[in-house]
């Protein structure tokens, strides 16, 4: 009864040392987030506000989108609408082509990962360079992100050192993080200077002003957009918020939740094209408007992609980003994957013990765990329910709805305590993997109660 996630997780845990390192590294980020959250007396109010602002925006999304687009165009940007990943990629390519772009530098964008933009553009002959350090490492390794905020978190610095020796001619055996960062900086500097266009994602789109806000720690978005005359922004429709005043709520929450910093090093506002340049904003749906119509899951549109739910998730920390079959892992990814295609991504629904920690850290107060519970209820209707779980649930239903039979079962149960180990601890018993069976008591509570062994009377 193993899902893909369960199998991949078991594989990940085989290397217990690596698993522990991963677990503790992400837990450290959760602790940093806690330190920040506890220092803001109005933290819980901010979360509530963020949730309400997002729900408000989502409930009037059409008018805010119109407002954003007309303001953006008034500022001199060109707005494009993409209904899906394919359209998004084609639009981006057509802009690049009409400007004879050979090299594109990108800052981090999960939306372009979602659209598989890089592969598409490379296929069209464009040189695509990721400029976020983590993304660049993965690009050179030929891997994709295992975390949405710290994409290369599963890689240790020694591995990065080796990679840089090979690709950037760094000193042999030197994996000092500061040294490696300097090497990457020099390497990327060349890429920035020779690029023809810059691409960024968007953390927020401000409807009132038509500007996009990008939060980075490395300043790479600004390097790209300052040096190139062409700036393309890729933005999901759910990134909108009403105005600059509401932005303040989110910038206070985002970095604190994501990495435990008071704010990201750079919070860049892009309102109009640079002088003599062009700014294109591609607004992407790619399934988001369908979420809008789903009352059980509409809350997913509040997500600001901070990754806090992943850092706190005890399952994610112990199974790593690659154990999930959707490109976004953790509680947020389980839900977004199911919204993308339940048939395709249902294997991740097992990756949750329903501990509810994600609900509590989410800065937008998304009920992530409740939604996972709801997805489990639906698996059977997609014919994706686990056969054994279904059988066990049916068996339990049968037994528990028959109190007399239940009492007989209780009486017989202690026999199990004395069965030979081989009958109990075998492949069929997943409990026995790493655990002893609990021992049934000689006599159950209900039997003792019935015989009057428990109830006291007042004169006793």
């Amino acid at each position, binding site marked *: 009864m193993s899902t893909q996630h369960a199998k991949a997780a078991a594989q990940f845990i085989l290397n217990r040392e690596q698993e522990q390192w991963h677990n503790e590294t992400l837990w450290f980020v959760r602790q940093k987030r806690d330190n920040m959250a506890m220092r803001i007396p109005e933290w819980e109010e901010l979360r509530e506000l963020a949730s309400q602002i997002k729900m408000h925006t989502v409930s009037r999304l059409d008018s805010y989108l119109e407002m954003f687009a007309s303001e953006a165009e008034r500022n001199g940007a060109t707005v494009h609408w993409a209904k899906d990943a394919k359209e998004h990629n084609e639009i981006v390519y057509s802009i690049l082509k009409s400007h004879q772009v050979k090299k594109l530098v990108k800052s981090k964008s999960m939306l372009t990962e979602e659209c598989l933009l890089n592969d598409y553009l490379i296929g069209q002959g464009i040189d695509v360079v990721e400029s976020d350090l983590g993304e660049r490492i993965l690009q050179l390794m030929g891997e994709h992100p295992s975390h949405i905020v710290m994409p290369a978190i599963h890689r240790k610095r020694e591995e990065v050192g080796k990679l840089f020796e090979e690709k950037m001619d760094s000193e042999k055996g030197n994996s000092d993080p500061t040294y490696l960062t300097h090497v990457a900086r020099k390497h990327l500097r060349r890429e920035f200077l020779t690029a023809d266009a810059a691409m960024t994602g968007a953390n927020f789109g401000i409807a009132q002003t038509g500007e996009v806000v990008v939060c980075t720690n490395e300043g790479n978005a600004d390097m790209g957009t300052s040096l190139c005359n062409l700036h393309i922004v890729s933005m999901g429709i759910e990134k909108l918020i009403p105005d600059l005043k509401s932005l303040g709520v989110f910038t206070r929450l985002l970095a604190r939740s994501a990495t435990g910093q008071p704010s990201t090093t750079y919070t860049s506002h892009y309102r109009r094209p640079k002088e003599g340049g062009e700014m294109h904003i591609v607004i992407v749906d790619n399934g988001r408007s369908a979420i809008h119509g789903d009352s059980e899951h509409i809350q997913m549109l509040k997500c600001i992609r901070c990754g806090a739910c992943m850092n706190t998730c005890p399952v994610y920390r112990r199974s790593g980003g690659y154990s999930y079959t959707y490109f976004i892992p953790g509680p947020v990814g389980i839900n977004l994957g199911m919204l993308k295609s339940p048939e395709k991504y249902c294997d991740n629904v097992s990756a949750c013990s329903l501990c509810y920690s994600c609900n509590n850290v989410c800065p937008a107060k998304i009920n992530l765990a409740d939604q996972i519970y709801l997805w489990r209820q639906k698996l059977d209707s997609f014919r994706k329910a686990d056969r054994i779980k279904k059988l066990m649930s049916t068996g339990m239903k049968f037994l528990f709805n028959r109190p007399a039979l239940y009492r007989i079962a209780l009486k017989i149960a202690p026999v199990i305590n004395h069965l030979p180990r081989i009958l109990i601890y075998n492949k069929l018993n997943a409990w026995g993997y*790493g655990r002893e069976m609990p021992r049934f008591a000689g006599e159950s509570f209900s039997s003792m109660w019935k015989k009057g062994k428990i109830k006291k009377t007042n004169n006793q």
Partner: protein
Amino acid sequence: MKIGLFIPCYVNAIYPDVGIATYKLLYHFGLDVDYPADQTCCGQPMANAGFESKAFELAKNFDEMFDQYDYIVAPSASCAAFVKYNYPSVLKGSHPCRTSEKIYDICEFVHDVVKPVKLPGRFPHKVSIHNSCHGVRELHLSSASELNIARYSKIKNLLSLVEGIEIFEPDKVDECCGFGGMFAIEEPAVSVCMGEDKVRSHVAAGAEYITGADSSCLMHLQSIAKRNKLPAKFIHAVQILTSGL
């Protein structure tokens, strides 16, 4: 005040002593306690596995059976939370749900309703509290570590009434133990890994005993401690509270 005792299926079969301690404690406070004989399971195992509809009959019977009491008390935070938060939706549209408002975990009930200022008995041991997910994040038995709210712990308050006790908590104070019902068998590797980490952190905190309000988590941890021959003893909080009774 009439109290209906709910002893969840696995407590009934595996930890009857926890049930007895629950009864004893309520009786000690002079309360009128009854145990409806036809109770079985709350239905949580099926529902969490994705078969909420298979819990409907159980929820309906439970609601009918326990409606006659002023309070329903159970020595299992997770089961109490299921009745409290999930029954209304399990029964929605087909049957009124009257019990969700009346159910309490035993620690919650004693702390919030009985409010004792002293308890007889001594328990001169080092115990580490296992703050279970559903106890913390659904029933609010203690302040969840993620939230910026005033710190409190109802179990700690209660245990502090027992003389001689030394109370500890593990690192990652309310991280999941990895049980999660069917999760334990669907994701055995992660589940066991979580459980091993949890037992070790309780032991590292200095625990002779690991205690808490959720027998299901304690059962999971005990099974893991036993397999790994880890030096930890397990006891439900209510058994400590009744050590002088």
